[in-house]
């Protein structure tokens, strides 16, 4: 540990001795996040319980030129909360209070360390709905969701985290506290600073409070599972559903490998004798829901679905969605290391992208399991590999490069919902272009001239 003893003492004074961890056994568990094959030891971990403590930590970090890496539950998938060497890990998991549910304005104010699940539960308890549901929602923190602008299974109809953030309290790198946004539906006063912090991956400030928009809970919901003998039939079904101007809340896709892994874990009775599975969900008022479900079913059948099953009740629907959310982790059942991809393309290019990914896997002789948000054009091809196999890991990297290049060529993006972090840092300049890179760099330098917040992430 090369963080100076004086810094540690100052941190203890700021946050309380119990809230500063420095032992090796305490730091190892904070040396990684949810991203495969990345590890880096921090210098210490500090649990903040108030924004004032964070102000103190950032002022100290600026003074001592020490890096600070903010973290919630460490479930990120691009290395965004991976510590920099000997940094201060600033963990907000203990700032998890639900502060205010405003039924008149349909908003929820929470501390950044509250889990996405706690947010969803607080909304549901008032008969309201917080739609963004990233795979890790049971433990991911809302602060992390905002910092990564997380998506989820319902993005197609309901959008992503950005669409629900009305206000933020942020501690700026220099220790200044900034509030942006309010409970007004309309607000065009000045630049939308709020939008700059959403998806900023811990590089522009530390998000401490989040004001969220809630919506009424849909009165009805229907969940369908359709299976196909060929992947392109599933892709065509998705295209036809969108072309029929149906926007279901969920259009999720699993390939054979993923289906088997998920079923092995969740035991929800997924059909195993198929190459592709679509999980489709429509919600809203009962009449249109019934109509959309019937039309989706007939589109699936027209495209040669082997079977279309309708979930019999809410409990079964929830089980299916939960099973789908476990897909990434469940794939780890068949390989020591799972590295998932997040390239996203316009929906019209989806079938092409799926074929390309399959061809790349074959070209580099890699095992792959694919699942994802087909309705969003956001696929998660996941390489099933072993980080100790250097040769194979090199081939994974090469395969990634080709997939990114193809995604960009098809008018897509290098990451749909996982962020740049360190995993995709080297691809950002090519994707974003010189002008965007310059603006981002200048913006970051203005807010964080000493470069204390999450250095080395997103871009240098």
């Amino acid at each position, binding site marked *: 540990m090369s963080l100076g003893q004086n810094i540690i003492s100052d941190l203890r004074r700021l946050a309380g001795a119990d809230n500063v961890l420095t032992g090796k*056994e305490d730091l190892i568990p904070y040396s990684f996040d949810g991203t495969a094959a990345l590890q880096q030891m921090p210098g210490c971990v500090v649990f903040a319980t108030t924004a004032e403590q964070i102000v103190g930590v950032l002022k100290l970090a600026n003074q001592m030129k020490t890096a600070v890496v903010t973290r919630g539950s460490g479930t990120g998938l691009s290395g965004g909360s991976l510590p920099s060497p000997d940094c201060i890990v600033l963990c907000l998991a203990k700032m998890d209070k639900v502060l205010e549910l405003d039924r008149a304005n349909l908003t929820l104010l929470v501390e950044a360390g509250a*889990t996405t699940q706690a947010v969803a539960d607080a909304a549901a308890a008032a008969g309201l709905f917080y739609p963004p549901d990233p795979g890790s929602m049971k433990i991911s923190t809302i602060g992390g969701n905002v910092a990564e602008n997380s998506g989820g299974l319902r993005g197609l109809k309901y959008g992503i985290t950005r669409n629900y953030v009305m206000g933020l309290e942020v501690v700026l790198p220099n220790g200044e506290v900034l509030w942006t946004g309010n409970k007004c539906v309309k607000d065009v006063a000045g630049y939308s600073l709020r939008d700059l912090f959403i998806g900023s991956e811990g590089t522009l400030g530390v998000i401490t409070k989040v004001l969220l928009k809630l919506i009424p809970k849909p009165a009805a919901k229907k969940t369908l599972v359709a299976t196909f003998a060929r992947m392109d039939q599933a892709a065509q079904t998705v295209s036809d559903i969108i072309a029929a101007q149906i926007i279901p809340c969920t259009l999720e896709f699993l390939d054979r490998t993923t289906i088997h892994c998920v079923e*092995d874990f969740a035991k929800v009775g997924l059909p195993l004798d198929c190459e592709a599975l679509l999980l489709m969900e429509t919600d809203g008022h009962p009449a249109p829901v019934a109509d959309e479900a019937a039309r989706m079913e007939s589109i699936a059948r027209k495209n040669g679905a082997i079977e279309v099953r309708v979930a019999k009740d809410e409990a079964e629907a929830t089980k299916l969605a939960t099973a789908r959310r476990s897909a990434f982790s469940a794939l780890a059942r068949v390989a020591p290391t799972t590295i998932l991809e997040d390239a996203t393309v316009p929906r019209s290019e989806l079938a092409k992208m799926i074929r390309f990914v399959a061809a790349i896997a074959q070209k580099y002789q890699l095992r792959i399991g694919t699942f994802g948000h087909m309705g969003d054009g956001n696929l998660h091809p996941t390489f099933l590999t072993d980080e100790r196999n250097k040769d194979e890991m090199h081939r994974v990297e090469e395969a990634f490069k080709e997939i990114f290049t193809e995604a960009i060529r098809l008018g897509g993006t290098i990451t749909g919902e996982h962020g740049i972090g360190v995993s995709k840092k080297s691809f950002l300049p090519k994707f974003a272009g010189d002008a965007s890179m310059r603006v981002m760099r200048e913006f970051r330098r203005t807010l964080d001239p000493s470069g204390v917040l999450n250095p080395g992430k997103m871009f240098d």
Partner: protein
Amino acid sequence: MTTPLSHLKGLDYSVLQQCMHCGLCLPTCPTYDATKIERHGPRGRISLMRAIADGRLEATKIFADEMYFCLGCLACMTACPAGVNYAEMFEHARAEAEASGVLKSPRRNLIRAFAIRWLFMDLSHLRFVGRILRIYQQLGLQTLVRRSGVLKLLPRRLQELEGITPDIQPKFSAELIAPLTPAVGSKKYRVAMLIGCAQDLIFSDINRDTVEVLARNGCEVFTPPKQLCCGSLHAHNGEWELARQLARKQLEQFPPDQFDAIITNAGGCGSHLKHYHKLLADDPAYRDRAALWDKKVKDIHEWLVEIGVKPPANDSPPQLVTYHESCHLAHGQKITAQPRQLLALIPNLELVELPESLWCCGSAGIYNIVQPEMASQLLDRKLKHIQSTGASIVANGNPGCLLQLINGAKHQGLKLRVVHPVTLLAEAYRRSG
């Protein structure tokens, strides 16, 4: 001496690698929930185990303490989509902690030598101590001693321990159960009944009820009076080699090819008993028998549902019952539906679901003795939920949990009957004649 197999470095590396640190285990871990510190959660603990296997960390005192701060409730295994075998890693980690010697102290060594090597290696020793305790309790000495204030002279930890001494049953299993109980009606199965160690002293009535229910369902029940500890206490406390010795002796006493099933009614024991093959995998003399044994061991709830349990006749009083899951029954053996199915068979019994029924009550083997603070936090949480159901009866399938709840209810002055589902079933049969 511990075999190298039991060390983290001897563990198949892919078992350690299986964790892809997605964090989905964290919200189900009682110690993470209480502290929000990664080291106190499964993902953090696994990272420490892997660091040791990699040679990046020594087995330090902090590591060893951490492995004993873990309840071993295995809730993380149910939550884990990646199928991480935490149970196996955890046993290896505790064995590593013991082998490293970092926890050694004269007091701890003495307690372990007494409990693990003497008391539970030969159950005649346990019964001997049980008899002394029984006399102490029956003669009213315990009440007398408690009233006299003499206990205040003891160190605080011992005072607390005296407070949770279980009531010893007037008769042990062998005095209640014949070595061979014939099936009522036609014999369909021949089963062996494991009476357990603590179960035999404290809940011999549950053993009797189990045998009775088995007999009423066409099972001839073989219950030898002198039995062994299953070895879970040893395996969970880093004594791998002793656990292997006990497993071999069990296989000798109950040759698995001679029974249709080997029955346990203790969730914690069952979870260990079903893994003898893994324990003896490198022992050519025993491993095949152990594999058969693993298949034959059945938890009582599991077995009764499997053979199509007979419903009791319709003349029971109304009972409002809630069900608290034993961690090693639910997470260790994935048995959650069957106890509820059995309870639902009892006429006029209304089962009300317990909030957080899958959350550990803090008993966790001997956890309530070695980690009293965390254990009592968990117990309070559990009792609050039980009270919220309005049920006056809580059913549970593991002696450790039963004891924990009984002590908790007594301590808080709650009117709560704590009972094994099989006892409720036996009572219903008796009422219907």
